[in-house]
């Protein structure tokens, strides 16, 4: 692996993260049935403290979740240093903003993703290995 300086490494990770986040929430809002394609088979989501594990459960969950309108206001991202050559490239992404689910009031939310790169000969596809979602203001809702 070529040596990159820290800033370049972070910039590249952040570009990938921004692109992924944009696709994720767009898919969540407009093409919900396609959302689980962005997850690894064994991915786990914790949704407001409830564990949803594996693609079947994720499919059921997103199917049941009311339709959504997300607005992301903030995004932070970091690459994860992996020393072993077998390890896949990994980035951590944190988002926050507001969301309105059909039939519920608007909430502030925070979400974390652990994304893993899946490289094909033509490009790199990022998939979610871990996902954690919480309303920021749930205690007062």
């Amino acid at each position: 692996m070529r040596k990159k300086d820290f800033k370049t490494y972070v910039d590249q990770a952040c570009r990938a993260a921004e692109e992924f986040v944009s696709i994720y929430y767009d898919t969540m809002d407009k093409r919900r049935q396609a959302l689980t394609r962005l997850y690894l088979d064994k991915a786990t989501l914790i949704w407001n403290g409830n564990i949803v594990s594996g693609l079947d459960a994720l499919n059921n969950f997103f199917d049941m979740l009311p339709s959504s309108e997300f607005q992301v206001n903030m995004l932070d991202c970091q690459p994860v240093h992996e020393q072993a050559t077998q390890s896949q490239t990994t980035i951590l992404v944190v988002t926050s903003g507001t969301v309105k689910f059909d039939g519920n009031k608007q909430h502030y939310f925070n979400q974390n993703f652990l994304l893993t790169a899946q490289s094909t000969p033509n490009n790199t596809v990022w998939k979610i290995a871990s996902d954690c979602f919480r309303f920021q203001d749930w205690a007062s809702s």
Partner: protein
Amino acid sequence: MPVTRPRDSQWMSPTGRQGDSCGQRGGFPGTLAREKGDKPIWEQIGSSFIQHYYQLFDNDRTQLGAIYIDASCLTWEGQQFQGKAAIVELSSLPFQKIQHSITAQDYQPTPDSCIISMVVGQLKADEDPIMGFHQMFLLKNISDAWVCTNDMFRLALHNFG
């Protein structure tokens, strides 16, 4: 603060800690007994680390450097820092007193045996008003000690709840 359970679907009324699992169990390394009352190991390690972290932060943040390694990345309100030395600069943040209060915490193991944790809470610095915050940690076991390799912190500046 008192927790009221709204008469809403399960998904819209969050639990403060990781609750009952829903759907199939994933293939986490070293699957453990999940009987009621048994916390999985990653939750035990994670919550113990978090408790230690905020205790250090609130009482003597000059000691914080010990939980990071040279390769650690910290993002604090959008500013990126790398390595132990840079992180120690946090101890010179412009407040004297600080107190964190955790509202909710979530833990997950990663495919390569790290632990991700997400904390949502409130803090009060000096005589400033209480503010919400959100922090994410990635913990790794190196030579039998759990260290933080990634840390991202944000204030919930829009939220006056």
